[in-house]
């Protein structure tokens, strides 16, 4: 029936043009469409007269239907709630045939397709669109984040993987960060690490599917070891050599190779599946923290101990030969590269040391990439300020702030900031002055900034109640867009500067109490599902809604 709908399209501009009316779509019963400009104050009768000039149905035979109602001649268009870009159906009344297309349709060139695309938002089946139009402009940059959890707070760093790359290319920085007291204390708390890992939906899925991997997570000493290893390249290399030896021993024994293969099937494949799966969903490594992790880990390894990168590639060619004393080739380096989710070239030769359950080594880096999303999710200013008052954090902040190099790096990574600096060299100078930075990042200033941000956020939310969402994304005024930019910037700075999860021991029901009740009010009644979505999005209601709707769309 509706197939004919696209047969022809025509546009009648000019006619009512001068007096600033709106454009509405007219859809004839035979499937043709055209657009007409009209003033909403005009009556239906005069509107029909206007339409009669552009189609072959005389005004007295036209029957217009909008939102299921037949428009009466003496009413104004406004009284029916007509708005720009809405569609009115036109039927020929009293006449037996309505199948002759209006002549204008054939003569006019079909120009631009202005059908709903612009304001489609809600109509589209994918939840992302819906969310975006429900909360227009809230997250202009985070759009690509998808389920990645770059939330309201930190979307200022959309190229988070860039940071990671930067980090991995600079092992010193990585090590320094790993050595900061905050991260150290984090690592010494296996419970915390566990919750961190579990809060990553992809990791959780892997563990759900492979209980044997869960054991590894439950063993704090292994965790600590891997973390330790991530921090200390020497240790890492040592560990790798050990495992290589062990591997070669295994392989030399009968049935050994089969065992290795089983191990590969049981351990490596789920990981790879998970990573590639995530890659499909998210397109970028940023949305797949796990993929980034592997890259991150491999990269830092490659940076600090180049021997691995140089050897693995060539050794795969050897295949399994007689036992030798060299570190064994990485049996799955090919597949790892085939995963193809990494853009970081240095990360490709997955260091053979990962052999002892390849993923676990990767988890070493988990703390880092996962932190910013968690930070992003903290919608509660008080939580953040609490965090800021934590001596360990402030110490870390200070050490970062007092190091202009760090700051520079962080700033250069943020394209918005970079753009700002390029336009405004004074600002750059200012930002490079440690004194200014310290002031800027003093707890008081941060608190004020957060308060500001909070109020801006609530303002934004008010604006984007479902009512205004009907008109789609257009409600995001340019003014607020700028504010968003500002907020993102702050958020980005914050995320770049500090990274520690908030109160990890609090059960999610409490942690996300406000967000949960918000979701309830919106009509999402499955608390478990809500919690899962909130955890995955680090407490960002907006992203959680997108996630919930996006999932249900499949």
């Amino acid at each position, binding site marked *: 029936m509706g197939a004919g709908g696209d047969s022809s399209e025509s546009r009648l501009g000019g006619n009512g043009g001068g007096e600033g009316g709106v454009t509405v779509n007219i859809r004839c019963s035979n499937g043709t469409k055209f657009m007409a400009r009209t003033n909403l104050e005009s009556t239906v009768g005069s509107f029909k007269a206007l339409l009669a000039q552009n189609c072959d149905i005389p005004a007295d035979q036209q029957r217009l239907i*909008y939102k299921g109602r037949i428009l009466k001649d003496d009413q104004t268009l406004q009284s029916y709630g007509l708005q720009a870009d809405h*569609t009115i*159906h036109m039927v020929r*009344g009293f006449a037996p045939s309505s199948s002759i297309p209006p002549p204008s349709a054939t003569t006019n060139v079909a120009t631009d397709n202005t059908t*709903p695309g612009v304001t489609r938002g809600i109509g589209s089946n994918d939840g992302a669109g*819906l969310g975006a139009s429900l909360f227009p402009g809230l997250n202009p940059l985070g759009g690509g984040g998808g389920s990645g959890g770059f939330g309201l707070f930190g979307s200022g760093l959309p190229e988070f993987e860039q940071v990671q790359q930067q980090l991995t290319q600079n092992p010193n920085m990585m090590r320094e960060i790993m050595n900061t007291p905050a991260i150290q204390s984090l690592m010494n708390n296996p419970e915390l690490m566990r919750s961190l890992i579990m809060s990553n939906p992809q990791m959780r899925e892997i563990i759900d599917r492979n209980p044997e991997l869960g054991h590894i997570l439950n063993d704090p000493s292994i965790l600590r070891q891997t973390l330790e290893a991530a921090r200390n390249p020497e240790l890492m290399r040592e560990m790798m050599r050990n495992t290589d030896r062990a591997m070669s021993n295994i392989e030399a024994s009968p049935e050994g190779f089969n065992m290795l293969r089983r191990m590969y099937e049981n351990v490596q494949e789920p990981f790879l599946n998970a990573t590639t799966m995530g890659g499909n969903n998210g397109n970028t490594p940023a949305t797949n923290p796990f993929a980034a992790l592997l890259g991150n880990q491999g990269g830092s390894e490659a940076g600090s101990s180049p021997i691995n990168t140089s050897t693995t590639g060539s050794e795969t060619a050897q295949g399994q030969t007689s036992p030798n004393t060299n570190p064994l080739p990485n049996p799955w380096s090919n597949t790892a590269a085939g995963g193809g989710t990494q853009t970081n070239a240095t990360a490709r030769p997955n260091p053979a040391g990962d052999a002892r359950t390849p993923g676990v080594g990767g988890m070493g880096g988990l703390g880092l990439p996962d932190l910013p999303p968690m930070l992003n999710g903290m919608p509660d200013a008080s939580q953040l300020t609490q965090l800021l008052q934590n001596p360990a954090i402030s110490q870390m902040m200070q050490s970062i702030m007092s190091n202009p190099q760090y700051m520079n790096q962080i700033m250069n990574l943020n394209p918005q900031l970079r753009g700002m600096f390029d336009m405004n060299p004074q600002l750059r100078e200012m930002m490079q002055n440690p004194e200014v930075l310290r002031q800027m990042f003093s707890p008081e200033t941060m608190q004020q900034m957060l308060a500001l941000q909070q109020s801006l956020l609530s303002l934004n939310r008010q604006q984007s109640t479902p009512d205004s969402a009907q008109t789609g994304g257009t409600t995001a005024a340019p003014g607020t867009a700028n504010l968003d930019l500002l907020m993102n910037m702050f958020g980005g700075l914050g995320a770049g500067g500090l990274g520690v999860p908030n109160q990890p021991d609090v059960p999610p029901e409490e942690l996300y109490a406000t967000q949960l009740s918000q979701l309830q009010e*919106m*009509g999402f009644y499955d608390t478990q599902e809500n919690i899962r979505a909130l955890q995955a999005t680090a407490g960002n209601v907006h992203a959680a809604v997108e996630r919930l709707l996006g*999932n*249900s769309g499949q």
Partner: protein
Amino acid sequence: MGSEGSSVVVPRNFRLLEELERGEKGIGDGTVSYGMDDADDVYMQSWTGTIIGPPNTVHEGRIYQLKLFCGMDYPDNPPSVRFQSLINMTCVNPETKVVEPSLFPMLANWRREYTMEDILTQLKKEMMSPQNRKLTQPPEGV
């Protein structure tokens, strides 16, 4: 990801907003139209739909208006559907003009994914069915 998504249900208001937009923008099959009666009704309960009589039937050239009422249990349960215009149709109670779920399988076997647009389209198909296309119709009117 899909494993956990299957159990999530789209809440009522999200769903109705989506339908509202489709109705206003005229997305989809162009032969039915529908919209909310009262834009201020936060519960989005009362809707009006229009079916343009399908060609080559007795309904051709007619426009049928219907009232659809989405209870708070929509879309878990179907809306109630009542013709405003006079119509002679097998699934419509001639007295109350209500579309009887027992005679209209779509309502009887309601599924959550069905929309009001689906109902209207299905009703239009019903008008084209052999038992309905030739039924004599009352004079047009309410």
